[in-house]
């Protein structure tokens, strides 16, 4: 079987997307990662430590839950991959566990990270506490307000949270600040990127760490239905890490329909959106070539989404390739639609999803299913952090 979608080439390209567009100041750190990541993460020692922590600390495998009442509603079979039950409340920790072990193997002493919803920041602060490493998390000023509980959690875990005050004061700007900090403090520091974005090897590395999601889906689905492959896998896409993990082992299985859901914000054409594939063109952001929301002059556009984790003007290069090649279908859900889906799941299944994951849930309304389809939705995180948005919605 030829691998067309799963991994990039030696220079980090998925088709025409990817690469490492970085200033020379970052070259030593990024080059070191490029040279060493595969060797380290494929070693027996690493795999044993990683798997043990995923099991005993994160609580993996996460359940694949057959959502009976939701299935009845849509007249098909819907399974929820419960990443919301991971320690810290989202899939993000799969990646931070992997990257902290890698950082330690490389002899790094300090960790920096960017965060949008704060889930990646919390997951990073958590693994730093676990390993006794210093941790600085950059977070957009706007996101610090709308995800205040996660700011408090990071601080309680001993991390320093630094506000990003430039641009739209959200995830893109936090990422800029993290990269600038890394340029200024290259020694002993590892940058734990939170999604399948950034210069090569980050997209591939993060996808590999998250691929545990689809690895589990395969055997869990087989146990439940007798078949390894679902008919559909649906996941939301900010940068695209939970989607990359949920798609990973199905990428080369052409019978599995892959559906990525972006945040339409107030509507794709409203001017307040984060639907990158609908609105974006090829460009370079944060060190890789991908699809990007930008002006005709190549200035990056400020995105909008109610969900901080999807409020990003780009997507990872793997997803840009999946979009261009047609391997995955890209849909979107608006702020209001995501809210609606969140309340629906809460009341049908007793599960309060993260706003990000609610975008993936909503598109059930836009798709036609057969009675015997089996649909897997990646429930990337839980909704505790979004309670203030949910409370506002209830007041309306």
């Amino acid at each position, binding site marked *: 079987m030829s691998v067309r979608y799963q991994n990039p080439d030696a*220079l980090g390209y998925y088709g025409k997307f990817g*690469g*490492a*567009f*970085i*200033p*020379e*100041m970052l*070259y*030593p750190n990024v080059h070191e990662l490029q040279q060493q990541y595969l060797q380290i993460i494929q070693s027996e020692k690493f795999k044993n430590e990683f798997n043990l922590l995923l099991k005993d600390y994160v609580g993996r495998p996460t359940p694949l839950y057959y959502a009976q009442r939701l299935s009845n509603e849509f007249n098909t079979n819907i399974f929820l991959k419960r990443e919301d039950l991971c320690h810290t409340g989202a899939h993000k920790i799969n990646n931070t566990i992997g990257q902290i072990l890698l950082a330690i193997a490389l002899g790094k002493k300090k960790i920096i990270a960017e965060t949008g919803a704060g889930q990646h920041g919390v997951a990073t602060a958590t693994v730093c506490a676990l390993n006794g490493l210093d941790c600085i998390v950059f977070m957009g000023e706007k996101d610090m307000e709308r995800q205040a509980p996660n700011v408090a959690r990071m601080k309680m875990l001993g991390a320093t949270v630094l506000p990003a005050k*430039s*641009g739209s004061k959200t995830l*893109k700007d936090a990422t*800029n600040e993290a*990269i*600038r900090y890394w*340029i*200024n403090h*290259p020694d002993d520091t590892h940058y734990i990127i939170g999604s399948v974005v950034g210069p090569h090897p980050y997209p591939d590395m993060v996808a590999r760490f998250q691929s545990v999601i689809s690895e589990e889906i395969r055997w869990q689905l087989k146990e439940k239905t007798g078949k390894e492959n679902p008919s559909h896998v649906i996941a939301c896409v900010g940068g695209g890490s939970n989607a990359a993990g949920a798609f990973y082992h199905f990428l080369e299985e052409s019978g599995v329909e892959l559906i990525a859901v972006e945040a339409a914000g107030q509507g794709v054409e409203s001017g307040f959106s984060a639907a990158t594939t609908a609105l974006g*063109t*090829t*460009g*370079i*952001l*944060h*060190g890789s070539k991908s699809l*990007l929301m*930008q002006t*005709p*002059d*190549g*200035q*990056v556009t400020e995105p909008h989404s109610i969900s901080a984790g999807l409020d990003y003007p780009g997507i990872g290069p793997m997803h840009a390739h999946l979009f261009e090649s047609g391997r995955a279908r890209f849909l979107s859900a608006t702020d209001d639609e995501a809210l609606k889906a969140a309340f629906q799941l809460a009341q049908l299944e007793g599960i309060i999803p993260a706003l990000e994951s609610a975008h993936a849930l909503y598109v059930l309304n836009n798709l036609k299913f057969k009675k015997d389809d089996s649909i897997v939705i990646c429930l990337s995180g839980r909704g505790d952090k979004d309670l203030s948005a949910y409370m506002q919605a209830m007041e309306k």
Partner: protein
Amino acid sequence: MKRFDKLFNAKKSHVLNMYCTAGYPQLNSTMQVMKALQANGADIIELGIPYSDPLADGPVIQQSGSIALANGMTIQKLFVQLKNFRKEINVPVILMGYLNPVLQYGFEKFCADASANGIDGLILPDMPEHEFEKEYGTIMENYHLDFIFLVTPETSEERIKKLDSLSSGFLYAVSSSSTTGSDKNMDEVSNYLQRLKSYQLKNPILAGFGIKDKETFDAVCRYANGGIIGSAYIKALEGETDINAATESFLKPIISTNK
């Protein structure tokens, strides 16, 4: 003869490269700033193209870029502003920017327009050397544009030699791993520049990042052929209405005894 060759044939040390942001402080001050820089002793002008996400830049240059963008600066407008600049400016002028806006403009079109207007070279700090070799290097060569790579104290000897061989015009020695405008330990910078000098590279070396006054400029000029000043000058222009006077009072102390 290329302008850079002419310059470095005539002047081997204390070559002063001044950075300014196009469209800053006012949309139409680009030419005024360039004329003031040339009149007050700059040997090279590095004109920055503003970008929404300038990863290699510190707060001062970021801010100047945001102001320029708010002023309405674009690459299109820049080339209109530069239409007849060679009638007035004879020092080498390079454009510094990030790859994304250049790619959106069209890389070849950008090179063609830059070259037709009399630009001498380009600095694109996020251009990977692999992409340069594969695709972009020949395009620039076809339009007689020099391309300047950056090296840092952490760049290996082997890589420095490679980047030097790919560069023309000069080689940009970033004084330490940092974004623009941060303070430096000048002793460490000297050691590094001394090391660069010992490699006997093909290009002249200009040191940049953190050079802000006569003292820091003279310090790098002990081993490098010259230095690049950016953030400190941008700061000096802030809120100034008389660009020539502000430029003169900024450059006078730096230039004075070197002539």
